[in-house]
């Protein structure tokens, strides 16, 4: 075993003292797969012995993660075998969940949905899915609800984490998803890490940044975060704005870049347009208007607004212009009411400097879930979109999908359905009569949580019917009327699509426990039963698909001739290869590292976006209006609820290394739970001294919406006036989302988890 461990390390990190070839322990069979946690998409090899998952190693053959995994992944084999895995369907009877058979469960599910649709119309039902379901599962749910039932009330938890990044990409470049890839890490000289605790939340990406920093003293890191999180240990410049006041900083960086003539005139003239919003409508403006707009954001003025010293802003601006610059960001930008605008301003910096579309230079939104990109964003499993860049509001797009799906003409409604927050409000107001929740835990993860838990669970004469499909009991299953046990990860086959547009195949290598079934099987069963009830056209689901392989083939067809084209990603190729990055238009294409670049992006060579007039290496933003990316003149909108006299602190929530999201998986590894056994609130020592608070004191955190009682951790990590609470714990006192605010970005509809006003007191 020792030799196996050493060679595994050597094959990833390189070592002469040991054999390079991995020596597998006897009788262990290895299977190529993908990690179940974040959107980094680490390749893993899973060791099976005697039908049981006994080992996990990073896949050294993986082209981008190269054998690395983080600490959480080590525990996946244990998490799969957690004793409290759900094994049987359960229905609420006389107030308690009781075991029932699958036939009764599916009859109940289809019956409740059928009844609601027949009595109250298709918009009385809703689907709330997940960036952790397989792509085929999300696609099938979207197809069933939008084209079969005829409602756009189709949402997923990526609305809570990635929607503003989508809004940023779409409003700037015309289509979602990053144009660069992890390949750019190898070439970047400047890393701009914004609102991203990369070290703890994307550790494998952080290692690659560290490797670049080790390799050359010329590699520089700018960290922009109001917390002094672990990335600051390697940062050359740390910008720590008051939470919610970073937009002036980004504008001030643009101000410095242009004032010091560090912008790229040629790139701008060729590839960029400028827009502002007047009276609610976007209007074109000139470069000179942009320069004039930026006058209100000199570094000195930005310092007054953000608290970041002007000199640091100027230093960061010069580095970004120096390049090649790779920006990574996550929730610090996205979970804001100005989330789309904040994203736009990062794109602005890349566009005015031309730091885009060349090795090492790209803006790149990192993803928190393993399949938010491929499973929800790309398949269009949100209320306003359809698969592969199509929009609900676009009649041509609706017609394309109706034809492909075999739905009747006009089956897809022309208006977006309810977004996540509005969907749960509708549940509270009894406008939604039946909801299906799949592989997610809104009973813990929604902001302003008490309101929505009441909507899901409180006793009412006409309580909405809530069905939850999950592998584990959660704070949502306890509110459900029907709980269906789900297969997870190694127990089902399908595709995950991660942050860099790479789609990867995950094989089924073992059976699920008890009577658990895959989400795909459950959705397929539901579709067939709804057909029999007459609320979905006969044969619409039941005659089309037998396995996720069949769904994948239809998905490839749906992607053809779109900006996502992955026609060439056949099932066989995905089973063989370590993932492929779209566009990948034919089965001999190797996949695309950089989009929009002639010579790299195959869509510039053939198909609807082809252009033979541009030269190799040149950029064409073919999805944007007039083929030009947009630099937006966005006002510096403040947060919805800044600190005030009564509520003098700003609360921000986030993650820690050992846990993930609502802890549904990581809390089931005893070791991870022991490593971070309880929730805590970080308080700056200046604030703690003033209030007489010490580490270990129990603190009541109160907002206008609710309270939590959590132990203090006095540390110089958050800036003064800021509190930070990880949101992984489910016990009553630690449910920090009872405190957070459900105000959301008017464009992306993503809630402002990162900022709300609170007061604190020792208990």
């Amino acid at each position: 075993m020792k030799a196996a461990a050493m060679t595994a390390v050597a094959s990833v990190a390189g070592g002469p003292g040991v054999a390079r070839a991995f020596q597998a322990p006897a009788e262990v069979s290895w299977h190529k797969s993908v990690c179940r946690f974040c959107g980094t998409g680490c390749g893993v090899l899973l060791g099976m012995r005697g039908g049981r998952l006994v080992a996990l190693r990073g896949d050294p053959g993986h082209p981008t993660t190269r054998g690395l995994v983080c600490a959480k992944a080590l525990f996946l084999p244990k998490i799969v075998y957690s004793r409290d895995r759900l094994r049987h369907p359960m229905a609420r009877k006389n107030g308690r969940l009781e075991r029932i058979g699958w036939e009764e469960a599916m009859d109940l599910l289809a019956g409740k949905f059928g009844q609601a649709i027949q009595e109250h119309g298709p918009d009385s039902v809703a689907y709330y899915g997940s960036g952790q379901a397989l792509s085929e599962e999300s696609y099938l749910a979207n197809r069933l609800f939008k084209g079969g039932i005829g409602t756009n009330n189709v949402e997923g938890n990526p609305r809570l984490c990635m929607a503003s990044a989508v809004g940023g990409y779409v409003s700037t470049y015309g289509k979602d998803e990053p144009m660069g890839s992890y390949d750019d890490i190898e070439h970047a000289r400047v890393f701009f890490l914004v609102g991203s605790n990369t070290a703890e939340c994307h550790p494998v990406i952080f290692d690659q940044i560290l490797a670049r920093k080790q390799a050359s003293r010329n590699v520089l890191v700018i960290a922009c975060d109001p917390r002094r999180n672990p990335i600051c240990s390697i940062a050359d410049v740390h910008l720590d704005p008051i939470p919610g006041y970073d937009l002036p900083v980004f504008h001030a960086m643009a101000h410095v870049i242009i004032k010091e003539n560090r912008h790229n005139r040629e790139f701008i003239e060729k590839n960029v347009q400028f827009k502002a919003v007047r009276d609610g409508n976007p209007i074109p403006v000139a470069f000179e208007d942009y320069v004039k707009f930026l006058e209100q954001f000199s570094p000195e003025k930005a310092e007054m607004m953000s608290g970041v010293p002007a000199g640091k802003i100027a230093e960061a601006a010069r580095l970004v212009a120096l390049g090649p610059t790779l920006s990574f960001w996550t929730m610090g930008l996205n979970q804001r009411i100005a989330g789309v605008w904040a994203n736009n301003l990062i794109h602005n910096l890349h566009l005015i400097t031309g730091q885009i579309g060349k090795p090492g230079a790209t803006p790149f939104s990192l993803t928190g879930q393993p399949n938010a990109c491929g499973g929800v964003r790309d398949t269009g499993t949100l209320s306003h979109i359809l698969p592969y860049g199509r929009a609900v509001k676009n009649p041509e797009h609706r017609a394309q999908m109706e034809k492909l799906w075999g739905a009747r003409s006009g089956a897809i409604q022309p208006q977006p359905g309810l977004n996540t927050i509005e969907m749960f409000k509708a549940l509270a107001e009894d406008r939604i009569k039946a909801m299906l929740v799949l592989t997610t835990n809104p009973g813990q993860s929604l902001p302003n949580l008490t309101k929505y838990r009441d909507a899901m669970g409180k006793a009412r004469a006409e309580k909405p019917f809530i069905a939850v499909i999950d592998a584990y009991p959660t704070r949502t299953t306890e509110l459900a009327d029907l709980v269906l046990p789900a297969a997870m990860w190694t127990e089902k086959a399908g595709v995950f699509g991660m942050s860099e547009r790479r789609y990867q195949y995950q094989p089924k290598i073992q059976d699920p426990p008890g009577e658990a079934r895959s989400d795909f099987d459950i959705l397929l069963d539901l579709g067939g039963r709804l057909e029999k009830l007459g609320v979905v056209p006969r044969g619409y689901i039941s005659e089309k698909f037998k396995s996720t392989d069949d769904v994948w083939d239809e998905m490839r067809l749906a992607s053809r001739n779109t900006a996502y084209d992955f026609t060439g990603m056949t099932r066989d190729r995905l089973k063989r290869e370590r993932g492929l990055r779209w566009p990948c238009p034919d089965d001999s294409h190797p996949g695309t590292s950089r989009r929009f670049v002639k010579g790299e992006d195959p869509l510039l060579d053939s198909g609807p976006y082809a252009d033979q007039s541009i030269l190799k290496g040149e950029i064409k933003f073919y999805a944007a209006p007039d083929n030009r990316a947009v630099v937006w003149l966005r006002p510096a909108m403040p947060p919805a609820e800044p600190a005030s006299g009564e509520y003098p602190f700003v609360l921000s929530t986030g993650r820690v290394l050992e846990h993930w999201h609502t802890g549904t998986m990581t809390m089931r590894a005893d070791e991870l739970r022991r490593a971070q056994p309880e929730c805590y609130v970080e308080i700056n020592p200046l604030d703690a001294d003033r209030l007489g608070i010490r580490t270990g004191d129990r603190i009541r955190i109160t907002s206008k919406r609710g309270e939590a009682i959590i132990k203090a951790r006095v540390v110089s990590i958050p800036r003064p006036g800021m509190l930070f609470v990880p949101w992984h714990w489910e016990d009553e006192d630690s449910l920090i989302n009872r405190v957070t605010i459900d105000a959301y970005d008017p464009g992306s509809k993503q809630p402002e988890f990162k900022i709300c006003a609170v007061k604190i007191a020792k208990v």
Partner: protein
Amino acid sequence: MVLVGAFARIDPTGGGEVRSRLSALSGVEVFDLDDPGKVGLLIEAADTGLAHRVLTSRVRNVEGVWGVWPVYVHGEGDPREETGRMGDSLDR
């Protein structure tokens, strides 16, 4: 018994000293890798939790260690050891 293979990314300017500090940790076996900025680590522990604690608390806190990445884990404990988080009840 659990065995974890990992590597630490270290300050290359102080490689020898960092390596010595790591070797002094009990339960940690250090081996060389090609890259002077990395050292290989083997951690043997009674369970994965202890191994994890060695990595995240002790190795990571050694001066000159920039980060630690596990690569391999092998353990074949009794599945009944995993208690789950909430027991068997769905209603609380």
